[in-house]
């Protein structure tokens, strides 16, 4: 093998990919998309409003002052209570239109209408120009509920606060592992597994698709004949894989850099995340996890790229390739869905078996490592099997390549492929 030629092929592949506008878009956009739920969640919780001015209208419950007192303790946003009135039903009917006008004229932002309810005592309605802010709604609801609950419990000897606390009772979790016990495991594992699995899933599929595109391009433009006149099929293949791999590393490095940038500078600067209990993204991903992720990412990337390359080498058109690509996508998709099972059942026998099946190893083993770290031998058995499968794929592809690459027209049958393989 002539390594200078391998390098030349790899270099061309790398430059062509990195310059591709979709590569740039995905590389820049992916971390942003991943961070979006955190951002949006945080923004919703911040209730970014200057001041909310409301009135309280009580139609026959007599709870106006109690509710006003509760509202006055609200701190999560600035609330001004412009007045509270107790009206009869007919009075309210006649005042209704003027209240509406007051809201429309922005004298007030809205009003809370309290009415008697046969079963629960109090029925409430918030009438306002904007009714979409979940923080405002949630807080108001919470306070009115307290008053209703207090009324109901009055004289029963039960304490409202304790009842309230019991209603929102939580089961706390501690993940016990050899490396040390850690509180609050499930949410963290779920979150990080989902993000990492998503990264693997999307990039592997995209890399495969790109590999296919570039080979089809070379085949359909007949470049392949020129290239194969100069390099061997093995050199060609090796160069392509190296090119694909260095693209993947570039992408990983870019993402890592962007995540650091976002979590260390941008999020603190926007004061985002402070509501999430001092969340620090980097704490979510420990070094061991990132180490295994990198290994599985690179292996999965190469493994699927080779499979896609073989599939593409037998096709002459994109349409042909799409048909061939579907069965290759299946294991990636299935293992992605299986990851959700693994998150809740990391030690189940089926999870263990599937994680050792090379096409599923990148995603499923990663999920297992993250949720409940398997014994070291199991991790490395999975990685070893994946390495073997990748070597086998490279070996088969190098043999089949010199025939399939120059083929045009009809796709070969499996029988023809086997014959070519034997002849090589």
């Amino acid at each position, binding site marked *: 093998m002539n390594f200078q030629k391998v390098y030349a092929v790899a270099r061309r592949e790398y430059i*062509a990919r990195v310059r591709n506008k979709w590569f740039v878009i995905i590389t820049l956009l992916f971390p942003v998309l991943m961070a979006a739920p955190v951002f949006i969640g945080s923004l919703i919780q911040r209730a970014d409003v200057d001041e909310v001015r409301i009135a309280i209208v009580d139609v026959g419950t007599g709870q106006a002052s109690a509710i006003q007192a509760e509202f006055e303790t609200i701190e999560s946003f600035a609330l001004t209570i412009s007045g509270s009135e107790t009206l009869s039903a007919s009075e309210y009917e006649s005042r209704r239109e003027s209240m509406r006008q007051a809201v429309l004229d922005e004298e007030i932002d809205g009003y809370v209408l309290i009415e008697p309810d046969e079963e629960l005592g109090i029925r409430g309605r918030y009438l306002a120009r904007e009714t979409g802010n979940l923080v405002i709604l949630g807080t108001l609801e919470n306070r009115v509920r307290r008053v209703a609950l207090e009324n109901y419990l009055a004289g029963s000897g039960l304490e409202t606060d304790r009842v309230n606390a019991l209603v929102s009772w939580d089961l706390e979790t501690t993940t016990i592992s050899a490396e040390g016990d850690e509180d609050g495991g499930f949410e963290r594992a779920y979150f990080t597994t989902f993000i990492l699995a998503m990264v693997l899933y999307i990039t592997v599929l995209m890399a495969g698709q790109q590999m296919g595109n570039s080979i089809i391009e070379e085949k359909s433009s007949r470049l392949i004949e020129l290239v194969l006149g100069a390099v061997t099929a093995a050199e060609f293949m090796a160069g392509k894989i190296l090119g694909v791999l260095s693209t993947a590393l570039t992408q990983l490095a870019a993402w890592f850099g962007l995540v650091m940038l976002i979590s260390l500078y941008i999020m603190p600067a926007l004061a985002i995340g402070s509501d999430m209990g001092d969340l620090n993204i980097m704490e979510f991903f420990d070094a061991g996890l990132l180490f295994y992720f990198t290994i599985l990412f690179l292996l999965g990337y190469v493994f699927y790229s080779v499979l896609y390359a073989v599939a593409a080498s037998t096709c002459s058109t994109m349409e042909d390739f799409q048909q061939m690509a579907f069965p290759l996508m299946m294991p990636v998709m299935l293992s992605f869905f299986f990851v959700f099972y693994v998150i809740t059942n990391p030690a189940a026998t089926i999870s263990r078996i599937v994680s050792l099946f090379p096409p599923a190893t990148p995603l499923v083993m990663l999920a297992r490592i993250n949720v409940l770290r398997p014994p070291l031998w199991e991790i490395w058995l999975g990685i070893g099997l994946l390495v073997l499968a990748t070597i086998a794929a490279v070996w088969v592809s190098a043999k089949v390549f010199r025939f399939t690459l120059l083929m045009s027209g009809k796709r070969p049958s499996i029988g023809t492929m086997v014959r070519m393989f034997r002849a090589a």
Partner: protein
Amino acid sequence: MNNNAVVRTQKLVKEFDGVRAVKELDLVIPAGSIFGLLGPNGSGKTTTIRTCLGVYIPDSGSIELLGNSDPLAVRDRVGYLPEERGLYPKMQVQEQLAFLASIRGMSHREANGRAAYWLDRLGLADRAKSATEEFSKGMQQKVQFAASVIHEPEVVVLDEPFTGLDPVNTRLLKELILELRDNGCTVILSTHRMEQVEAMCEEIALIHQGELVLRGGVQEVRAQSGSNTLAIEYEGAPGSLDNLPGVTQVHDSGRSARLQLEADADTQQIARALFDRVHLHAFSTEQPSIEEIFLAHVGHGDVTISETGELVEEVAS
């Protein structure tokens, strides 16, 4: 010039799904000349070339390329312009040339320098950074030619190099090919355009249905084929050259025509028939053109001349 053969095949056989594309071909291509490899479409030319260059593995027989029995071992000393051409459409043209040079074993720096030189040579230096897809077909063709010789090969195989070129660029390419020869490079010209063969090649080989049917120097081949062609200039009604005695084929161009004769045809009798039918300006016996020789050897009604002067072998479906 030396007398070494750059290509030597013995009983070369290449089959595709049981169909023999090349049948026990014995071919010797001498070094230091422009060699014409002729044959109609589908005759096995391209398969022969690909096999000789190591792109295909022969089913039987042997190949020697530049004295080496493994063509892949000498691939960096060989240039190849395939018939079905292509370049990376989105790649900058200079990078493209440099890439194609580097996979022929040139260092990255050297390749870049050669790419710049060739772009300058082809008058494309100011567009070195343009994507290849922005180029016209003719320009791409020239770039592709440059790609096949950029690493200064000892042998270059040009498969139909003139297809799609305008007269100006055809002349430029001819000059470049002659320059290659003058620099000691052996040029193998595979084509079915006979007028170019006559103009440029010193030796030819005719391949038909995977077999060698004729081989030799152009002049030698023409002389051997005898003086069985009549060239005439005339004025006359359409159809007036039909059914002349002893004439097997007529290539009528309107005011001039070339008549191919039976071996024992009586030229006096033909002349008398012509005087009766048309107003004759000129009348001479000539050696046949390569095209006519070609047709005589392979034309059994399944080879015709298309409007563009190309030989077309009708492939039985």
